């Protein structure tokens, strides 16, 4: 059974949530605005993904083993999509400039290779083939070159061993497996090294934008508290069995829930649009979001307790939000070792943003961000106590 005390806390929280839902302007502000910012970010950053090209291919050597091999290898390249065309279609589209580059495998491609002749791949292009066409062509050249090298080695080895009693089939199998080995552990390999962090602008700015929007709620929380105090309903509530502690806990729960709804919408949108989370990093991000929104809601209660008027509350809150956001590295990365980095330590956003970035960009775990989580949790505890004490002090003086 829920005790009377818990019940009162829940009823206060529910009342608060209902009042948020009634205020359509606030609702629009806290949800639609971040969505609009997202749309802008999407527009700005969505073009900067990895290369993705379409290979327009005419295959006239349908059954050939080498054409099949070439196509299998091309299909395994993830940044390449293959669009199969008939020869007449390809010519027509090139003619109309619908396409700038078409790669064609002639009917005798495989048979020429088998008979030891030079097989040809035909690159038909309009003008310079277009940028995408050029990149696609060079990818196809690379793949064809690999097959060519393999054939050269095969022939070389076969010629050298022609006098021995090793069968040509055995040689072929041995060479093929050697080449396969070579591909797995190449003599010269290319290592893709990401220097520092993932420089994707979406993942680096997303945390800052999310935390900033949740922080805007400080103003709403603070204003609502001042308004209730001025209206006299707060004082009236305190003549009932509701204690200041219960009142603040109820408001804290309501504000934290509102912040969480906001965060969940933002995180879900980020996932839908940018696909930056795995299920695990999504869950971990929710943990950060919960701790951060809880801290933010206590700060709103503190400001609401000390502000005399609603205007004052909203100005203090706006100043606080902007300061925390700017110093917390929302709009630019804070240079390491700088004075700014030292200052940034006073911003709650720094810890939340760092935690988010550790999870999203560096695939960290909760363990890696335990320091940040502890700092923010500390703010919750201090905030809960401080807001109550300040509120009571102000109340007693009035």
């Amino acid at each position, binding site marked *: 059974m829920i005790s*009377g005390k818990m*019940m*009162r806390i829940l*009823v*206060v929280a529910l*009342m608060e949530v209902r*009042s948020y839902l*009634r205020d359509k302007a606030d609702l629009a502000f806290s949800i639609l605005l971040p969505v609009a910012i997202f749309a802008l970010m999407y527009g700005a950053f969505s073009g900067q993904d990895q290369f993705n090209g379409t290979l327009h291919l005419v295959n006239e050597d349908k059954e050939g083993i080498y054409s099949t091999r070439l196509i299998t290898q091309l299909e395994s390249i993830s940044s390449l999509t293959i669009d199969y065309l008939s020869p007449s279609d390809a010519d027509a589209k090139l003619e109309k400039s619908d396409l700038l580059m078409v790669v064609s495998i002639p009917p005798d491609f495989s048979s020429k290779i088998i008979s030891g002749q030079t097989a040809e791949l035909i690159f038909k292009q309009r003008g310079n083939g277009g940028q995408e066409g050029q990149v696609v062509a060079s990818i196809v050249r690379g793949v064809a070159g690999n097959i060519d090298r393999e054939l050269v080695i095969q022939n070389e080895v076969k010629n050298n061993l022609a006098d021995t009693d090793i069968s040509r089939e055995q040689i072929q199998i041995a060479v093929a497996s050697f080449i396969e080995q070579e591909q797995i552990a190449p003599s010269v390999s290319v290592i893709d090294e990401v220097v520092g962090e993932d420089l994707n602008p979406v993942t680096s700015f997303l945390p800052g934008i999310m935390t900033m929007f949740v922080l805007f709620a400080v103003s709403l929380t603070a204003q609502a508290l001042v308004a209730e105090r001025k*209206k*006299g*309903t707060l*004082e*009236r*509530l*305190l*003549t*009932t*069995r*509701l*204690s200041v502690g219960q009142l603040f806990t109820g408001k804290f729960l309501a504000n934290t829930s509102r912040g969480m709804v906001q965060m969940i919408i933002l995180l879900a949108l980020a996932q839908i649009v940018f696909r930056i989370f795995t299920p695990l990093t999504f869950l971990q991000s929710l943990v950060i979001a919960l701790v951060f929104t809880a801290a933010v809601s206590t700060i709103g209660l503190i400001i609401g307790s000390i502000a005399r008027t609603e205007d004052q509350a909203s100005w203090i809150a706006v100043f606080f939000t902007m300061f925390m956001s700017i110093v917390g590295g929302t709009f630019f990365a804070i240079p390491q070792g700088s004075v700014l980095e030292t200052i940034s330590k006073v911003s709650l956003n720094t810890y939340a943003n760092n935690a988010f970035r550790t999870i999203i960009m560096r695939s960290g775990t909760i363990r890696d961000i335990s320091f940040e989580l502890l700092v923010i949790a500390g703010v919750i505890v201090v905030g809960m106590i401080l807001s109550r004490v300040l509120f009571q002090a102000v*109340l*007693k003086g*009035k």
Partner: protein
Amino acid sequence: MTEPFLVVNDLHRSFNDYKAVNGVSFTINKGEIFGLLGPNGAGKTTTIRMLSTVLPPDRGDIVIGGYSVRNNTDSIRRLIGVCPQELALYADLSAFDNLMFFGRMEGLSSQEARAQAMSNLEFVGLTDRAKKGRVDKFSGGMKRRVNLAIALMGNPQLLFLDEPTVGIDPQSRNNIYETIEMLRDRGMTILYTTHYMEEADRLCNRIAIMDAGIIIALDTPYNLKSKLGPPEKVNLEDVFLNMTGRSLRD
């Protein structure tokens, strides 16, 4: 009727350096209607705020139902109902929802709160407007009635009514006045402040006249008037004028 339910002893409260309440003492007996009269700024509201546990006194003590505000505000809050001078309502809620919310805060279950909300709204004559519209769309008199109905939530044993009839049309005033009479007939203990002398005269068992933070007279309306002449011919207005040299409604 002589068992004291509320005892106020040497109450003081200043704001900055201004002594709003400067040594007030009185008792209210169970079932009594006690009138606190005084001009603007006399300290009536400040006194009521201290009695209702929201404003701590600088000095002095208040005991209600045997509990002191010094160490037992929780117990006192279960006994009292407060109808503040300034309307304290949730403007965007219906009358019913306002009563429900305060009822829940008084510790009522949702069923109890619903039943009390309906009966209290009926009591103040607002049954037909209970769930119709937000209270900020109500007339001044209707808002006053909601304000009073909220104070009745949780069945308090002692009511503080701070000018419940101020600034409204005669019809609503009458309605509230009748409501208070009904409460009196039920045996409710009430501390009542008003500017309307004839109301106080008709309703109150005893009256304290307060001025500049102190009580300058405390007696039954009859005795207060007797000091000036035959009580049938004197009214409380004259008493007040005689004592302070000022009219009550200045």
